[in-house]
């Protein structure tokens, strides 16, 4: 989910993401549902369906707080992916584009010199 938001290329070729209603709505629904999946209580039909096992030990002690940690890791993952895509990749792209442009300019100059 984060990957497709991070990979979403809008300006200057496409309209921004929020103009695409079905896409935005499915993103929001998925986000809400996946968040619910992390925090749903044990012995729940949804969790049983997905095969997510209960976080209680054999003595019945629940470790519900672990889920906050999991959710924090998940959000950190989302942020890291997004930041990497926007910063590192944008930098690499600009360097590579400049190199390609320089090569093209060189070719153009050589061609013009021929005439």
């Amino acid at each position, binding site marked *: *989910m*984060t*990957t*497709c938001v*991070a*990979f*979403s*290329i*809008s*300006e*200057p*070729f*496409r*309209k921004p*993401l929020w*103009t*695409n209603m*079905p*896409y935005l709505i*499915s*993103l929001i629904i*998925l*986000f809400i549902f*996946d968040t619910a*999946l*992390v925090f749903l209580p044990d012995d729940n039909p949804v969790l049983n*369906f*997905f*095969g*997510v*096992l*209960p*976080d*209680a*030990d054999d003595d019945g*002690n629940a*470790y519900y707080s*672990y889920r906050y*940690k*999991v959710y924090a*890791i*998940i959000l*950190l*993952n*989302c942020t*890291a*992916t997004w930041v*990497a*895509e926007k910063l*590192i*990749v944008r930098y*690499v*792209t600009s360097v*590579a*584009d400049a190199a390609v442009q320089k090569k093209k300019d060189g*070719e153009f100059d050589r*061609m013009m010199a021929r005439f």
Partner: protein
Amino acid sequence: MSPDDKASLVSSLQETLNEQIGMCGDGANDCGALKTADVGISLSEAEASIAAPFTSQVQDISCCVTMLREGRAALTTSFQAFKFIELYSFIQFTSVIMLYCINANLTDSQFLYIDLVALLPLAIFQAWTGSYGKLTKEVPTATLFYFPVLVSVFTSTFIQLGFQLWLFYDIRQQPFYKPPVQGGDSIETEYTDSYESGMLLQLTNF
């Protein structure tokens, strides 16, 4: 200019500039040039329109701008869709490999949810974004094996892998953790539910 002159002008431009050449014209005498050009836009519904891949209803060259805008948006969209599918495969590949290491796997319902509910709508709807309102001087990436495209996919893959490993080992340290039940010596072992797969499902959902 004779029809042959137009066609040879287009082909000489193609040879010397080594770029994609577009041609926009009406009437039958443009047929040759429209055919030779990489992108031909015909301005009439009659004879010339057969030779050109595109036909414009508006009888002036404003269609070239529309053409470029839509073309660039389409190219960007297919790149985005390609990167998304590529990365999704990498993410699922790494999580399944990790689960195989402990003789577990994602369950059928987990696979079903990821592929059908989470992935399909996103893969379809992400292509519905319209083209940008005006033509800009930037040019989109045109080759798939362009260095930044690969960097982008692999950077994200390694970030995902790192977080998956983190959660994979972290869950095993928890007091409630029980290792997955192993089902006999047979190679065709039934995979059972495991804590690892549940955790990875929750991570890769995002």
